[in-house]
């Protein structure tokens, strides 16, 4: 079966600034594919080009067998998009929003009203359907935002950071709904800067940074790139000098790489447990107080750190 989405050397520039610098990947039907990267990495721009909102500067993408540049209308009928922002009319009710957005996808009459009932049930807002969106909580608005993207039963759903700025309970509900949609057969392209979400949801992950796809594969394939190393995270005080600690730890046996982050020092090592004692001793000698220590086994965060030298949240 051919991939439902194929991206070939896609470039998108705004003036002299290249937001996406020639990325290529494909997504198989039935997959959840996550595009993981920090803010400003080019995730939303990629989604905007794939959803035909903006034309690529060069390159092309094929979705459901149609080119985004040559057959945008066919592409639009195949995809559903859940944008990062709450693209809803706050002065309309959920029901009215669904009515309007359904009509934009050519739905009408009984087909539309029965589909609206299904989606309302799916997002758990049937009893609140006649309330204006502005009276909803942030989580409820997010659910309506997702519901709009599902109205026309798309084959491929783009979800652009759908959990930004919501409470843990709503976040959990959204992640569960993504898994349920996928279980029902929907292919999902999910962008996020939360490593845990990509790990939990994805069959495959593409890591994007500064508009470039720097890694691609299953989680196992990606973590293999960091050669089974651990990451030891030292949490130091706000007033401490991380650079002094880094200088002191450079020559400790077993330290492969040291990176400072916000009031933290991340040490990549083959065996984190064996490194704790010498590290704490050196810090103590320098008079630097270590508040706590975390050991992280290889994960996507470590992969990102390994590939870029920066944490995802930087």
């Amino acid at each position, binding site marked *: 079966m051919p991939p439902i989405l194929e991206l070939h050397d896609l470039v998108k520039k705004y003036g002299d600034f290249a937001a996406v610098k020639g990325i290529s990947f494909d997504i198989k039907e039935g997959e959840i594919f996550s595009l993981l990267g920090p803010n400003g990495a080019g995730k939303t721009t990629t989604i905007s080009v794939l959803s035909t*909102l903006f034309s690529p500067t060069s390159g092309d993408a094929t979705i459901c067998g149609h080119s985004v540049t040559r057959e945008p209308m066919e592409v639009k009928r195949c995809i559903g998009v859940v*944008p990062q*922002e709450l693209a809803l*009319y706050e002065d309309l009710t959920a029901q009215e929003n669904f009515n*309007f957005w359904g009509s934009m996808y050519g739905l009408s009459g009984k087909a539309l009203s029965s589909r609206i009932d299904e989606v309302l049930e799916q997002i758990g807002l049937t009893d609140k359907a006649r309330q204006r969106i502005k009276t909803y909580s942030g989580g409820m608005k997010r659910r309506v935002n997702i519901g709009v993207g599902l109205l026309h039963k798309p084959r491929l759903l783009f979800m652009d950071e759908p959990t930004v700025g919501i409470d843990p309970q709503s976040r959990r509900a959204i992640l569960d709904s993504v898994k349920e949609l996928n279980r029902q057969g929907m292919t999902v392209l999910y962008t996020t800067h939360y490593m845990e979400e990509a790990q939990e949801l994805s069959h495959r992950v593409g890591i994007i940074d500064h508009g470039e796809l720097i890694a691609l594969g299953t989680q196992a394939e990606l973590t293999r790139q960091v050669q089974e190393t651990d990451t030891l995270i030292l949490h130091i005080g706000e007033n401490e000098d991380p650079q002094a600690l880094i200088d002191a730890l450079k020559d400790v046996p077993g330290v492969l790489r040291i990176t400072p982050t916000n009031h933290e020092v991340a040490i990549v090592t083959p065996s984190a447990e064996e490194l704790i004692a010498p590290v704490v001793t050196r810090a103590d000698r320098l008079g630097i107080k270590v508040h706590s220590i975390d050991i992280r086994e290889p994960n996507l965060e470590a992969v990102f750190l390994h590939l870029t030298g920066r944490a995802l949240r930087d």
Partner: protein
Amino acid sequence: MSTRKIFHVALKDVCLIFRDRSALILMLLAPFLLTIGMGAVTGRFSGSSTNSGIADIPLTIVNADAGQLGDALVEMFTSPDLEALLDSTISTDLSAARAAVDNDESAAVIYIPAGFTDSIIPSPQRSAPPELVQVEFYANPTRPTSSGIVRTILEQFLSQVEIGRISGEVTVTQLLANGYIDPAQAAAVGTSIGQQMVQSSGSTSSIKLINVTEGGGEVEFDTLAYIAPGMALMFLMYTVTYGGLLLIKENRQGTLARMLISPTTSAQVLGGKVIGIFLIAMAQLLILIGGTSLLFGLKWGDPLAVLVLVFAAAFAATGWGIIIAAVFKTPGQVGSVGSALMLIFGLLGGSFFDVSSLPGWVQIISKISPNAWGMEGFLNLAHGGSIVSVGTPVLALLIMGAVLFCAAAFWISRRGLARK
């Protein structure tokens, strides 16, 4: 291209604006209240028998002329025909009269200098050409409407005098040239014609505030028929700016992008937005017209002509709303420019005062506003005009709207409907 989607977009916008209380206040309540306020100031609701809304304009006449024309002018301004409209005072002290205007106690002073009559009607004994003597009009700038009315009456009198003088000269010249009179009789004939002119110019029959319709019937002019369309047209600019603002806001909140990534073309989205603004503008004007008709008994004129004019005014104003949204990027910019245009067009278009009192070049500039053409049309109808009388304003408004739509479409096609 599916028109259903266009109407879905348009109806959604209409629904959104009618759920915005602050927008409704400015769209409907503000012009209504201002109409009532200005109507009250001009006496529209005081039950004046003239129904003109303007009465007892304080005026001072200083007559230094000892001749018949000076007397005729005074007689006209104090005649029973103008008794309800003017509160004329005869004075001999020009400085005191001017001071009364400066202190806002009087709307204007008319000063008739000595020798005014002689300058127009030469005495038979004089052989030299008369020296030019001009009547002085000193107006109160804080009472533009009242002083404008006085000036119009004065100009009408002087124009009749001038016509009489020229016709007298022509008559005497022709009589002399054809040998019907000799030069010795010429002065006597001239004086006789001058007497008739005095009687004619003193008549006030032509300056009553009564209009004659095309069918010959009389229509009393209602001040509210000037104020209400002025306010409605001014706040129409607010409405179309708000419509343009919706386009910018939708771009910011992501709903515009969401529409464009649905199987809907940019033309359908833009068409829907334009029709939405147009429908809101039409609704606003019709509600204000209906409200003032029902509450104040205001007669707007031939209903079909009013409807055609409302359509054209809403069309042109929508063009302005779309061009503002096309050119400017942020809600702040659109709001500021829209408010400025609302006031400038309101002033230029005659929402506050009659623009015919302004310099000619200002009157020409005023024609870029839908307000000016709209006012012209509504006033024609209020004066009893038929649908033909609004032909020029309607055509001008439709051309204005079409030009603005083309410009906006060109602008938007260059940079795309959705903006990063």
